[in-house]
């Protein structure tokens, strides 16, 4: 690979789009050519500088999100509003009670990770291909079929990657359901089957359970209380 060819594909190298053979050839050239190695280092520094500057600026999407929610939510009669307020107050009291209970640290970490990686959409190297995600699961000792079994519960797989929660490696899967993103964190089961329990952390609910094969933590927006329902649906498939 010449210097000209190397620089021509540097964007593809930085975005991880070169195949294994091309990437090896690219790295071999860098090892032998200080000029190209320096050029790639400067490109990487430039990208980091741009990324830090743009991601460092606050972006407030609350107004847009509110308007979109209003546009897709059917109008209600006044008595439905009153009933909703009563139910809301009851739910709030349950959340308040739950908030007083310290959640397991893995759940808190899962909620934080979901908020940072999914809600804030920090750019990461996610895998979108279901077959690649299943292979990733298998490398973590999780039955690869678990991913497709979860999808059979009506969830669309968006992408997945490996993350660390409270010191343990988990497969972080992001699914779509009813227009919302849901995170499911999986690792090989260790303690045996358990019922689904739910805790509240920040703006999210975390529902967690264990089967004979996997431990699963399901994270979704708290107001919808989707996490528990999804966890129970997923638990039936696993």
């Amino acid at each position: 690979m010449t210097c000209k060819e190397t620089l021509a594909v540097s964007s593809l190298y930085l975005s991880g789009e070169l195949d294994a053979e091309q990437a090896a050839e690219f790295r071999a050239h860098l090892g032998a050519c200080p000029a190209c190695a320096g050029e790639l280092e400067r490109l990487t520094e430039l990208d980091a500088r741009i990324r830090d500057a743009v991601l460092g600026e606050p972006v407030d999407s609350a107004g847009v999100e509110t308007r979109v929610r209003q546009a897709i939510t059917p109008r209600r009669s006044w008595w439905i509003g009153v009933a909703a307020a009563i139910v809301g107050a009851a739910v709030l009291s349950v959340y308040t009670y739950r908030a007083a209970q310290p959640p397991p640290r893995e759940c808190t970490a899962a909620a934080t990770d979901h908020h940072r990686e999914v809600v804030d959409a920090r750019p990461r190297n996610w895998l979108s291909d279901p077959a690649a995600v299943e292979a990733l699961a298998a490398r973590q000792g999780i039955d690869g079929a678990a991913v497709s079994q979860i999808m059979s519960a009506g969830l669309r797989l968006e992408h997945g990657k490996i993350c660390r929660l409270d010191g343990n490696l988990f497969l972080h899967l992001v699914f779509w359901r009813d227009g919302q993103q849901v995170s499911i964190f999986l690792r090989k089961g260790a303690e045996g089957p358990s019922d689904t329990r739910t805790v509240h952390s920040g703006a999210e609910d975390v529902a967690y359970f264990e089967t004979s094969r996997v431990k699963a933590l399901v994270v979704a927006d708290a107001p919808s209380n989707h996490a528990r329902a999804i966890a129970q649906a997923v638990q039936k498939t696993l």
Partner: protein
Amino acid sequence: MPHARSLLRVAQRLTPEAEDLVQEAMLLAWRSFHQLQTGSNARAWLFRIMFNAFYARGRKARLATVPLDRQDVAADQNPGTRAEVAQALGQLADDHRTVLLLAVVEGFTCQEIAGILDVPMGTVMSRLSRARDAMRNRLAPKCAAGGAS
């Protein structure tokens, strides 16, 4: 709401009507959600919808640069750096800035960007390369130009 912040972050550098554009894109996505294939890249799909909506508006409202909130700059540990980058980004051609943001900030691959913008992959790579060169020249000497052969 999924990806609203990412969409708005990019839209703010496309048009002063960024919030309207993102709202339109998300409502379009909501209505055509059933068309999203399992395993497809939902984030890229949302961005594609937003750019289609943007192009449908005829790019009637261009935005050269996004002013930084002075308070945010003051709170930044490197206010000069962030302001310089914002200014340099604002001076890029729209097409170059868009590709740079999608690749470097939002982490899309060149292939995904080609799909989002409906342009050939070679065009994406060419715009990305020119955008990086322009940014480097404008941000010099902190990111000095390279001398590779």
